[in-house]
């Protein structure tokens, strides 16, 4: 099974030759039973100046990754940044690993571990490719600190913080559905539509890719079955050169089975998983857009409140209540300030999102291109290998007397 190569990440847009490359490897099960967890080695190679060393490793557990994502989200989402999403929690997969012993690491759980490891690696590299996120102190601590990080207990699904987050998320979803923003900026109107259609396209594409993976795995299995059947036939066959040829056929088919299996893995890790990442990234993009909508809401709300306060002041002036006028005047100035600030906030986040989306689009196309190139290279290699297998078989077949 070929492991996906470590991705090299160029710092975007700055034209310098700084690079940072993060690898996630050596998944280990620490502990036993329900309190056990998976730990991964995070290796960083970089020449970025603000890191202390050029090449080092730390151990991190899965909940650390989730904790990192949550912190980055809290700090940067409202500045209009697209935060790469972390791999999802999976109750079934994790429990299987927790309860399973080291000895019977069956293919199902090792597949799960490999899938998760690859996802974590892609997550780390996407996050580090973002110049602002890379400089974030929490991120730096995550990859640099040579000790165990404080347990991000709030990432557990059953904690009180988790329940609170769930409530918040429900509220946000309702908000997203009910509030229709009065969009004045054409750019955002078009972009939102583009994002929606991109989402739909990627989902369809990913679905067909997953189908391809499954069918290619099927092909690998049926090729293996054929190899076995031919081996049995070869042992029963009495004609000696036919028997020999059948035996060779069995071995050749066995080799093609391995090739098909490897190709199925390439289909999966290179194509399907990457496309799935982008579907999640688009969800993050939608989150950022929604942040902007929220700031707009705040701005509108403060404008409405300002109007009310002005009204109240005018009423107080008419009624000649001097004391109330004073208070109303204070409130009016307070809300005038709030309106100004929220408008600034809104314009700031709009500008930030535009810049962010530019980078996002460039990165998306580059990722897509890299993905296709790697996939086609893998496909070519496996086709060439298959050709070689059958070329070596032909003389055997011709030798049947």
């Amino acid at each position, binding site marked *: 099974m070929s492991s996906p190569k470590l991705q090299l990440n160029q710092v975007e847009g700055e034209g310098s030759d700084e690079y940072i490359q993060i690898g996630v490897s050596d998944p280990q099960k620490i502990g036993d039973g329900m309190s056990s967890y998976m730990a991964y080695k995070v290796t960083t190679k970089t020449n970025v100046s603000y890191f202390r060393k050029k090449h080092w490793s730390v151990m991190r557990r899965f909940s650390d990754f989730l904790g990192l994502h949550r912190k980055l989200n809290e700090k940067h989402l409202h500045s209009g940044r697209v935060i790469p999403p972390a791999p999802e929690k999976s109750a079934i997969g994790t429990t299987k690993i927790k309860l399973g012993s080291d000895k019977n690491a069956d293919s199902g759980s090792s597949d799960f571990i490999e899938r998760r490891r690859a996802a974590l690696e892609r997550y780390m590299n996407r996050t580090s490719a973002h110049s602002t996120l890379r400089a974030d102190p929490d991120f730096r601590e995550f990859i640099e600190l040579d000790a165990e990080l404080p347990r991000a207990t709030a990432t557990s699904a059953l904690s009180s913080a988790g329940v609170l987050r769930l409530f918040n998320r429900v509220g946000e979803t309702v908000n997203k559905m009910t509030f229709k923003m009065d969009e004045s900026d054409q750019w955002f109107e078009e972009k939102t539509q583009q994002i929606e259609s991109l989402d739909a396209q990627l989902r369809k594409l990913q679905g067909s890719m997953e*189908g391809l993976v499954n069918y290619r795995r099927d092909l690998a299995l049926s090729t293996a079955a054929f190899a076995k059947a031919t081996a049995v036939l070869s042992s029963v066959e009495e*004609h000696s050169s036919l028997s020999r040829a059948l035996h060779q056929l069995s071995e050749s088919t066995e080799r093609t089975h391995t090739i098909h299996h490897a190709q199925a893995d390439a289909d999966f890790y290179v194509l399907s998983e990457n496309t799935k990442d982008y579907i999640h990234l688009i969800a993050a993009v939608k989150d950022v857009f929604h942040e902007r909508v929220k700031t707009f809401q705040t701005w509108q709300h403060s404008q409405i409140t300002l109007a009310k306060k002005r009204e109240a002041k005018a009423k107080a002036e008419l009624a000649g209540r001097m004391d109330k006028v004073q208070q109303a005047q204070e409130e009016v100035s307070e809300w005038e300030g709030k309106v100004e600030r929220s408008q600034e906030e809104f314009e700031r986040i709009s500008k930030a999102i535009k810049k962010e989306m530019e980078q996002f689009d460039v990165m998306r196309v580059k990722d897509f291109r890299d993905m296709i190139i790697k996939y086609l290279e893998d*496909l070519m290699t496996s086709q060439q290998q298959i050709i070689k297998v059958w070329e070596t078989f032909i003389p055997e077949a011709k030798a049947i007397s």
Partner: protein
Amino acid sequence: MLDEGSVSGGSASSGASSPEPEEPFIPKFKVKFSDNVSKDGESVRFTLQVSQNGLTTNMLEREFEDFEYLDHCVSTSQSSRGLIIPPIPQRSAIDPFSVEVQSKRLMGVESKILIPDEFHKDCQQLQKYLELLLSHPVLGKNEKLHEFLTQKNPPPRTKVKKGLMSKLSDSLDARKSSYRDSEEFFQKERDWVTKYQPGIAYTSEALTKITCAQLRISHQLEEMVTALKISTCPNDLVHNRQYNNINTIFLDCMDKLKVPETEDKGQQEDMALGSTLGLWSRYTHAESAMLLERTCLMVDYQACNRALDKAKPNRKEAVSTLV
């Protein structure tokens, strides 16, 4: 694998040894299937071109049921006792319902792929069947076969249905297959067939599964191509143009990839290895049927002999007292 020469040699060499080598048997007719296959609702008509000694050619139309009737006549005729009858190819599904059932069986329950009619495969298999019949030294002289190949209208067919009684007797016969044979040659042959027949049947099935898997992959690639086609974006920005370019290239690639998976490769693999495996799987089955027939006769013969031996002393006494 026994080739045609030794089939006729084998049936002649049991017991009797002919001093002079047998003359190679020349088939009386030559048959070629034309591509003209017409499908009319539920019946499929094949067009055959029959030539005799390279001279006269007859264009005949036959349906699959005619072939089935021919098979029935050949296998039940007296001259065919003790021969390995070439197996008739399996009937492929024609009407929509059975096509769906067969497609689901081969492709998996959730797939929506329907396997289309593959008449060239049927033609090739039926042609092979007729060639095997014609080149058999005994079966090639069969009257019904000649009628089949000369008359313009197909010989009238009677309904061939296996009744309950014949099914019962078949199952009783099958139990006799565990009796050891009196002759070493036949016992060895029977042992070999018992091992070989399931082996080759399994291999044939495994190959069908591979072909189906490849067919599924190509359909999936088609879906992916459709998904890629709708993924193009407007050509306004530089990176969008790049994206469209990459998309188009990838799309072309996948498109070209799926074509060989279905048509050429699938066909050739299927027709070459697949049909050979299928044929010899059925052939060995026919051989085991022939050997089973012999075994049943042998069992009956032995039973009769035992009965005779038991009866002999009684009768001898009775006869001696009479005389």
